[in-house]
């Protein structure tokens, strides 16, 4: 509740200070619009998910930046680096996750079209592709294990297991989010706040998934094409 202290008009002039418009109460171009808008603002409450996702991605990005700088330093620091030959199945992984980004984008766009349930179908396809990707990654691990290459075998294998595992764990989180979207399936109708939130949630999950897609591409290139 606003207080009622001070009833007289207040001077805006400071003495001995900088220019008036530079004071902390600057930015005072008077506008009266928007006063009838009830709080919380619809976009605002929904935007939270998008902002939160970008912020979260920044920290995930830092995690992988740290791991990849460790990778680069470690590769250069000793002569015990024995590059793995790429398990061919990783090409399948890459293909799957690339396609999944497309199908999720399709799902997100269909969400706006409330009349169709194509949204749910595309989501289902994306989940399937995501599971396919993880399976393919596990197969790549099994391929290496069969050759007797384990986490501690050499620095490159350590990083391979570590980076794919870290990415896989994050992707698993993405799958959980997709499952959540899937269970919700249809956008709520009527209540505009709920609609906006639903869309924002879908946007955030999509953003995350695309990020995981790019992250994998980056890791793939780092692991097997930057020696």
């Amino acid at each position, binding site marked *: 509740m606003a207080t009622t202290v001070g009833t007289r008009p207040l001077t805006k002039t400071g*003495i001995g*200070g900088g*220019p008036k418009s530079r004071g*902390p109460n600057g930015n005072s171009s008077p506008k009266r619009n928007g006063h009838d808008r009830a709080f919380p603002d619809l976009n605002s409450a929904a935007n939270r998910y998008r902002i939160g996702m970008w912020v979260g991605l920044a920290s995930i990005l830092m995690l992988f930046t740290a791991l990849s700088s460790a990778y680069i330093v470690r590769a250069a620091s000793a002569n015990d680096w024995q590059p793995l030959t790429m398990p061919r199945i990783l090409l399948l992984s890459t293909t799957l996750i690339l396609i999944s980004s497309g199908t999720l984008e399709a799902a997100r766009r269909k969400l706006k079209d409330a009349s169709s349930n194509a949204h749910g179908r595309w989501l289902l396809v994306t989940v399937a592709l995501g599971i396919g990707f993880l399976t393919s990654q596990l197969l790549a691990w099994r391929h290496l294990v069969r050759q007797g290459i384990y986490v501690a075998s050499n620095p490159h294998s350590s990083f391979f297991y570590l980076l794919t595992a870290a990415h896989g764990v994050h992707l698993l989180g993405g799958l959980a989010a997709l499952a959540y979207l899937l269970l919700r399936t249809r956008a709520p109708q009527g209540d505009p706040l709920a609609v906006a939130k639903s869309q924002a949630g879908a946007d955030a999950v999509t953003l995350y998934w695309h990020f995981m897609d790019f992250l994998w591409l980056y890791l793939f290139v780092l692991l097997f094409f930057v020696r």
Partner: protein
Amino acid sequence: MGRALAVIIWILTLGSVSLFFVKKWWFPEAISSHAAALDRQFLLTIIVVGIAFTAAQIGLGYVVWKYRDRGQSDRAVYTHGSNRLEVVWTVVTAVIFIGLAVMGQSVWASLHFNKAPAGSFQVEVVAQQFQWNFHYPGKDGVFGRTDPNLIDDSALNYIGLDQTDPNAKDDVVHSVIAVPEGRPVELILRSRDVIHDFWVPQLRFKQDLVPGMMIRVHFTANRPGKYELACAELCGQFHFRMKSFMLVLPADEHQALMALPQDQFQTRVTELLAKYQLPNYQQ
């Protein structure tokens, strides 16, 4: 209350500054050739620091004293600041601080950018948990081969010296470092296990010994004597007693020592440790 606070701030400032000013506790006297420049830079910096510290604290005490609420009816000064002042103090501090940083680089550069001069006396330092090992090349001036697999503490082969290597025949390994007076010394620093740090306060530098790395530093010591050598990087349980000595010897005495084989070397170092005294730390 304001006056009491101001007085306390001033007393604490005076106390803090005088602790440095009386110099009762100060660096031990330096013995290395780069130390004079370093000590000068330190003195300059500590004077700048002292002035800035004193000025800020006196200023703080002053405003606290002067502008206490005395129950007067008029209000505080209404101001949001002054851009001119902001610019002035930003620029002034930037010039002073960055100036200091630049000036501080010359000693650093002399220690780290230049290679050790030709003809430097070389010692290989191999640290291990709670013990220093100094590997002297002997008369031939060439270090014998070492291999971690040959390390055997029970046989006193702490650095894994390969006795089959002809270069190793005249090599000496000892826990005390003996360096010549007035001649550049190059240390080749290695560690057997964890990170240690080579530190003789009188030399005015420290350097980590990092396992897996071979780090070279050089210095010239120019006052004969016996100095305590410490480890300055946490290395485990008995870090606090990973102690040894550095002997700075006149050139002829040093040369004679270096010509001795391992067993005589040991006896001679014991004599020298008894001959030289630690610096007098009581000031």
